[in-house]
């Protein structure tokens, strides 16, 4: 122990006496270890830490599944059949999303709500913070209206008042008794609900009114696929009973953990690979520094051997230095990782699911210690191998300077080659993501986003605001906004671009009936008259909505170009009629296509354009939706003016989810942007480390060859010829590294392929550009030390030892 402490103490002093080497090594290692710790912190939080629910391994999500749609939420009737017909679940619960308006106590507030089955909290293992959870009786449609308040809202709005339980709150214009306060950690929700309402199990709803997220707890030992098999037996029966709605529909059972983190798993894999490459480059760099230092210290090591030091003792001495360097790097890296994770935890909107689970705990600390030791072994290995192989010999002429020998020169060449190959792989990856992100940002959304503000409106129920008042509200609010200074145009939209949207199936008049289970749907939106002008969506044919489109007149619908391309490519769409219901029904409601507008990217820039239909607010008076306001200045600065205009018209509504259209677009590209920025960051670190590493090695090997250069000059070679020779020899491992790195990047392209938008994983321009950057850096690293050496007189070079 005392020997170990002595070696550590002496190693610390030795490192202190070589500050440049020590700082370079520690910074390099801190970057490598910090990046790995940060990514492992995310992996640990998302993939390794159990979900914050009781026995989370038993929890699953049940999806409806259709061959042409994929996963879909469930309808109430299907859910009720799953629940009553299965034997593999202990419990099966469901919830749907809603928006609520809280009035009566303080300012009206728009709340995020959830419609839940009574057993949702039991399934998750949540116990109420105060009061109780719902009972089955409260799911009946005639039950007394109740509500559960989330712990977050309880603390924020009600100062954690325990007397809230039993009090009545006015929500959506209706008095509801608070029966309890519950945790608001509900899976599959990006924003936690503020309030929960019991859902009435109304089996008369359509079987394709899909809005329920279904969460189940499997009986112990039952695998997900067995449960899926059982649910699909039920779905096959439903297909027989309800062919019109249930043909081809199946159920899929996915473990909750996989469902929550499934999307980020490939990204985490890619980032883990990237930071591992950074760490390897860092190790190669420090190994090179270590080799050069060991060569310079061979005199000292030889003296130690002469005085009787064993090889293991020398190795222990070098290992003590490695451990100290790696330990210092780990401490700083841990700080860097903690800062990075803090940023990641607090991004708005969250870039990862469950950001609160990302933290540095004992497991992450253990990982850091482990990786630091591994790193110490990796970069300390080369000099130790030299000792083990007997390169350090005792002798009376230990004072003679050493070049480290041909084997060390070869080893340094290999390290440069490896660094270049690894750095190129990272650079190519970053280059591809940046190119992809650039292309994504160049996608035209189909409207002009600049200067537009959007805000969601929450309205009370019909008891407080009947349909006439709702219709009047939209009309008057939009008119009020249009006269507000700074507002250029204002409109209503049920779902403005860059957000969720409803998919409705429809039929064109005269079209042959669709087969059972055949899906023909559109993104269906309801908008106001000025919507197209407010967002500057171009009119391609026919007309936009106008004053004639009111209730009582023929129902009008505007479609987009993609709709025409897909469903009416050969006929003029104007005047055709479509219905969202059953075209064979007696009371079928037909909508006349009056216009065609440009395509709008509705959900995210990376999504393909989808057929869209627009109906007009003046004909169906929706009880919620968004205001879309084009302003002449900074849109976010208009928030209070918009709020005031709305309040002047109707005090019982509340604004929420206020954002500019540019913010909404930025959110849809936030993840690709972050991926590109992160990978670019890692790649730049790798490039910097590789450049420093190559420069260090070249400077060192050039210094060793100074005398040789002097001899060549003395024998009549021109400085240019010597320079070419040195650069050519220095670039050889670089070129080989670039070839190998290029091949590695091609092979690993599969990892990145799924993150790329309109960019191939083998994009030649990216490969050529990144290889050129690396080549240029390496060329400079080779050229500068040789050029500096050749600037001296040959006689000086000849005297160099």
């Amino acid at each position, binding site marked *: 122990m005392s020997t170990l402490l002595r070696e550590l103490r002496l190693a610390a002093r030795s490192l202190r006496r070589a500050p440049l080497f020590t700082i370079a090594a520690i910074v390099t290692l801190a970057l490598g270890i910090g990046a790995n710790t940060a990514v492992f912190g995310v992996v640990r939080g998302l993939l390794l830490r159990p979900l914050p629910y009781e026995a989370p391994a038993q929890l699953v999500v049940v999806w409806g599944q259709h061959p042409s749609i994929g996963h879909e939420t469930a309808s109430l009737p299907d859910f009720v059949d799953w629940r009553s017909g299965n034997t593999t679940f202990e419990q099966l619960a469901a919830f749907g999303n809603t928006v609520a308006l809280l009035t009566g106590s303080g300012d009206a507030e728009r709340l995020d709500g959830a419609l839940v089955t009574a057993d949702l909290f039991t399934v998750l293992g949540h116990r109420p913070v105060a009061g109780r959870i719902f009972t089955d009786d409260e799911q009946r449609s005639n039950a007394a209206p109740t509500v559960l308040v989330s712990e977050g809202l309880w603390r924020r709005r009600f100062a954690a008042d325990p007397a809230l339980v039993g009090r009545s709150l006015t929500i959506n214009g209706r008095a509801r008794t608070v029966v309890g306060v519950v945790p608001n950690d509900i899976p599959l929700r990006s924003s936690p609900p503020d309030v929960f309402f019991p859902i009435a199990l109304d089996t008369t709803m359509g079987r394709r009114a899909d809005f329920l997220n279904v969460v189940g707890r499997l009986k112990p030992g039952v695998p997900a696929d067995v449960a899926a098999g059982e649910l699909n037996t039920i779905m096959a029966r439903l297909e027989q009973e309800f062919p019109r709605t249930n043909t081809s529909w199946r159920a899929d059972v996915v473990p909750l953990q996989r469902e929550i983190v499934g999307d980020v798993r490939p990204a985490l894999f890619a980032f883990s690979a990237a930071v591992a490459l950074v760490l390897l480059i860092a190790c190669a760099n420090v190994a090179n520094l270590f080799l050069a230092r060991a060569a310079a210290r061979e005199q000292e090591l030889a003296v130690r051997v002469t005085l*009787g030091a064993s090889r293991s003792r020398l190795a222990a001495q070098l290992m003590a230095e490695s451990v100290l360097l790696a330990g210092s790097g780990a401490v700083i890296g841990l700080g860097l990782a903690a800062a990075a994770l803090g940023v990641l935890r607090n991004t708005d909107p969250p870039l990862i699911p469950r950001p609160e689970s990302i933290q540095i705990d004992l497991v992450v600390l253990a990982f850091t210690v482990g990786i630091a030791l591994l790193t110490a072994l990796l970069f300390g290995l080369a000099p130790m191998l030299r000792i083990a192989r007997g390169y350090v010999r*005792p002798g009376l002429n*230990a004072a003679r300077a050493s070049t480290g020998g041909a084997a060390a020169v070869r080893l340094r060449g290999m390290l440069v080659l490896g660094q270049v190959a690894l750095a190129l792989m990272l650079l190519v990856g970053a280059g591809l993501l940046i190119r992809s992100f650039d292309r994504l940002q160049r996608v035209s959304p189909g409207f002009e986003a600049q200067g537009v503000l959007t805000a969601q409106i929450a309205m009370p129920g019909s008891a407080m605001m009947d349909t006439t008042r709702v219709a009047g509200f939209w009309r008057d609010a939009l008119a009020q906004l249009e006269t507000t200074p700074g507002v250029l145009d204002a409109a209503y939209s049920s779902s403005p671009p860059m957000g969720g949207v409803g998919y409705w199936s429809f039929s064109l008049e005269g079209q042959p009936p669709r087969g059972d289970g055949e899906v023909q749907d559109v993104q269906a939106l309801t908008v106001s008259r000025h919507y197209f002008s407010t967002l500057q969506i171009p009119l391609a044919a026919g007309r936009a909505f106008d004053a004639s489109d009111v209730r009582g007149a023929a129902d009008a619908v505007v479609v987009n170009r993609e709709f025409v391309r897909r469903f009416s490519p050969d006929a003029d769409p104007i005047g055709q009629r479509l219905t969202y219901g059953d075209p064979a029904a007696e009371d079928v409601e037909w909508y006349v296509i009056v216009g065609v507008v440009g395509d709008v990217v509705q959900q995210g820039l990376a999504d393909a354009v989808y057929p869209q239909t627009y109906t007009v607010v003046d004909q169906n008076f929706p009880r919620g939706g968004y205001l879309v306001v084009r302003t002449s200045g900074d849109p976010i600065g208009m928030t209070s003016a918009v709020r005031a205009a709305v309040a002047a018209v109707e005090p019982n509504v509340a604004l929420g989810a206020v954002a500019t259209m540019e913010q909404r677009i930025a959110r849809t590209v936030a993840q690709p942007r972050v991926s590109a920025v992160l990978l670019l960051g890692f790649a730049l670190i790798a490039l910097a480390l590789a450049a420093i590493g190559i420069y260090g090695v070249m400077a060192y090997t050039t210094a060793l060859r100074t005398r040789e250069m002097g001899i060549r000059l003395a024998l009549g070679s021109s400085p240019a010829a010597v320079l070419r020779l040195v650069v050519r020899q220095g670039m050889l491992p670089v070129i080989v590294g670039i070839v190998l790195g290029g091949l590695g990047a091609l092979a690993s392209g599969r990892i990145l392929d799924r993150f790329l938008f309109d960019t191939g994983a083998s994009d030649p321009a990216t490969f050529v550009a990144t290889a050129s950057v690396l080549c240029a850096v390496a060329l400079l690293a080779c050229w500068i030390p040789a050029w500096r050496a050749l600037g001296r007189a040959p006689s000086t070079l000849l005297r160099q030892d």
Partner: protein
Amino acid sequence: MSVSPAGATALAPTDTKYSGRPLIQLDGIRKIFFTDEVETHALAEIHMHINEGEYVAIAGPSGCGKTTLLSILGLLDTPTDGNYYLAGEKVSDLSAADRARVRNRQIGFIFQAFNLIGDLTVYENVELPLTYRGMDGTERKRRVTEALERVRMAHRMRHYPSQLSGGQQQRVAVARAVAGEPAILLADEPTGNLDSTNGEAVMSLLQELHRGGATICMVTHDPRYARHADRGIHLFDGRVVEEEDQRIASQHEAELRASGFDVGQH
């Protein structure tokens, strides 16, 4: 007189000049260096011995094999042929690890270039070979302090080598060599990097150690310093060409001087 672990007489103050028992015995030592297709015969059929307490100087021109011989004596190299006995133990065919152990315990080295480690203080440099023995801290401290006092460098024990003059550095190197109480001190041109004043001082120090009972084998090309030894061994082309009892030679020289003859340096 203390005794080293191998049974050899260790360096310590003693009344006996030397015991006459052979501490080192070389029988037919040959050393051939093989480089590519060239064989270089560095030593050929060396037979020699060094007695306990003896002070031997190995001299000869450049390339005669002095350093090779000293390397073999110091177990820094192995002979191609022949036997080497140190304190009665055959050491010519030991493993590298065993050679390191014997070097550490029985041999003290004094180098031409001092070879102190720059990162270590004077104290730590002297302590270094003792740490390789696994000696406990108290004993190490005692020996290091004693050794530094013997070379009159105890007052500089917290200094680093770069803060010392060449002569001081060599004195520290001598302290490092004697601290382990080895059976023999091997000195390779110990004055080669020193000016004449410091060179004389180091030679006086070796004399003093010898008078205290130390067995010393020194390589030098300078006849002035060779004369400090009891016996001179002259090498030429890897062979011992002359052995001379320096004490008798010195006595003759003194007699010649007394008779008025000039005995200049060679």
